[in-house]
C-alpha cells in the first residue's frame, strides 16, 4: 500500500475544541495532587524522593490562567511508566501510577510526587497536558534544572538552547521545587505537537 493510499483510507478526526470555562471540578474529585498517596490508610509508600512542585499557569499579560485542567504523568523513581505495555514490568511500583489531573481554579497548582527516574534514555521529566478556555489541548515536558542528564536529552536537544531553561523546574529548597508555565508571548513555554509527531 502506498503512502497516499494510507492517507486516503484514514477517517477524518474529530476536531479538538476548547474545554471552555466550565469543566466540572467534580469529575476529577477522585484524583489527588498528591501522587505519593494513591491509597489512603496503608503503610506502603512509593519508592523514591518525595517532592513538591509549586507551579502556575500564566497568560500573555502575566496574569494567572484560571480554570485550566492540568494532567500530569511521569515514570516512577526507577524510570518505569505505568501503562498498557508495562503493567507486568518487574519495576512497576504498585504504589505509584504516575498520573493525575486537576482543575486549577485560579491558575496555581501544587503537585506532590516522587522525583521521576531516568526512562528510555531520557532525562527525568514530567509530561503536562493543559486544557484551557480559549485554546485546544497543548502538551509539554518539564525537566529538573539540576540534572546533568538534561544535556543529552533528545527532546531538549531538539529545541534551541535558549528555550531549554523555560522547561526547567527549579529547586528552591530540599524536596521543594517551582515552575512557571507561560502560555503565550514573552518567555513562552515551548509546547509540542503530539498530533503531527
Amino acid at each position, binding site marked *: 500500500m502506498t503512502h497516499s493510499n*494510507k492517507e486516503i483510507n484514514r*477517517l477524518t*478526526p*474529530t*476536531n*479538538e*475544541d*476548547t*474545554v471552555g*470555562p*466550565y*469543566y*466540572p471540578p*467534580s*469529575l476529577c474529585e*477522585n484524583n489527588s495532587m498528591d501522587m505519593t498517596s494513591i491509597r489512603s490508610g496503608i503503610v506502603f509508600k512509593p519508592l523514591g524522593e518525595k517532592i513538591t512542585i509549586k507551579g502556575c499557569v500564566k*497568560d*500573555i499579560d502575566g*496574569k494567572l*490562567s484560571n*480554570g485550566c*485542567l492540568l*494532567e500530569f*504523568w511521569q515514570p516512577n523513581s526507577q524510570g518505569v*511508566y*505505568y*501503562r*498498557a*505495555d508495562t503493567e507486568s514490568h518487574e519495576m512497576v511500583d504498585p504504589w505509584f*501510577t504516575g*498520573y493525575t489531573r486537576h482543575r486549577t481554579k485560579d491558575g496555581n497548582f501544587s503537585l506532590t510526587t516522587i522525583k521521576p527516574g531516568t526512562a*528510555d534514555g*531520557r532525562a527525568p*521529566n514530567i*509530561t503536562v*497536558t493543559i486544557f484551557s*478556555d*480559549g*485554546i485546544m*489541548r*497543548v*502538551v509539554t*515536558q518539564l525537566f529538573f534544572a539540576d540534572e546533568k542528564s538534561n544535556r543529552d*536529552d*533528545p*527532546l531538549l*536537544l*531538539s*529545541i534551541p538552547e535558549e528555550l531549554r531553561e523555560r522547561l526547567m523546574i527549579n529547586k528552591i529548597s530540599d524536596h521543594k521545587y517551582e515552575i512557571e508555565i507561560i*502560555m*503565550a508571548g514573552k518567555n*513562552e*513555554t515551548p*509546547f*509540542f*505537537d*503530539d*498530533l*503531527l*509527531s
Partner: protein
Amino acid sequence: MTKYGRQLGIGPTDNTSNERTPRNKLNLIPEAARKSFVPYAPGIHGINLAEADMTRIAPGRPRASGEAIKVSGKLMDEYGRPIKNALIEIWNANQHGGYTHDEDHSGLPIDQNFLGIGRTLSNSDGNYEFWTIKPGAYLARPDIGRWRPPHIHVSIIGGSSRLISQMYFPNDPHNDKDPMRILMGDNFKANIGKKYNVTANDFDCGYNFDIIIGGKNPTFFENDIT
C-alpha cells in the same frame, strides 16, 4: 535542528483565546522522545449507569425541562478501530444556556432538575450513548453581540486516547460566528451531530456523533498499521 508542527490559531473575538494561545509554532517531538508523550490514565472508572441519563438528576426524580435528546455514536481511531471501554465525560448548559458551575455568573436561569454533568463508557465495539437536554445558545460577548451556539462538551479518556471536544447542532444560526468553529474551517462538519428519529416516545430526537481520535496516541501500544 528544530522541526515545527502546527501553529495554533487564535479564535477571533475570543479574549481568552488571544491571551492564552501560544504564539510560537508547536515543536515536533523527536522519535526518541515520542513514546513518553503517549498519555495513559489508569483504569479508575467506577461509574453509575444512571449518570448517562442527564435528563434527570437521579432516577425517579422529575424530568428536566427542555427538549430531551439522545446522543449516540462510535469512538474510533483514524483507521476505524473501536476505542473500547473509554470514559466519556459530558457537560452541557440547560435549555436557557446556563451552567450549574459555580463560576457561571451569567445570571441565566438554572433548572433545579438539570445538573448538566454526566459520564458513560464506550462498550467493547466502541459504541456509546447518553441522554441529555438540548442546550440553549447564550450570549458570550454582550459587548459585541457574539453568541455561543448550542454545544455539548465531551471529554474522552481511554487507554492512550485523550480528547476534549464539543458536539454542535446542524444548521444553528450561531454556528458560523463561533471563534473555535472558525478555526476548524471546512472540517467543522466532523463536530456536528447528525439528527435521527428516536422511536422511544419520551425523547424528541437523537443525534449521531462518531468521535474519531486522530494522531498516533490512541493505538500507540497496539499493532502499527503500515
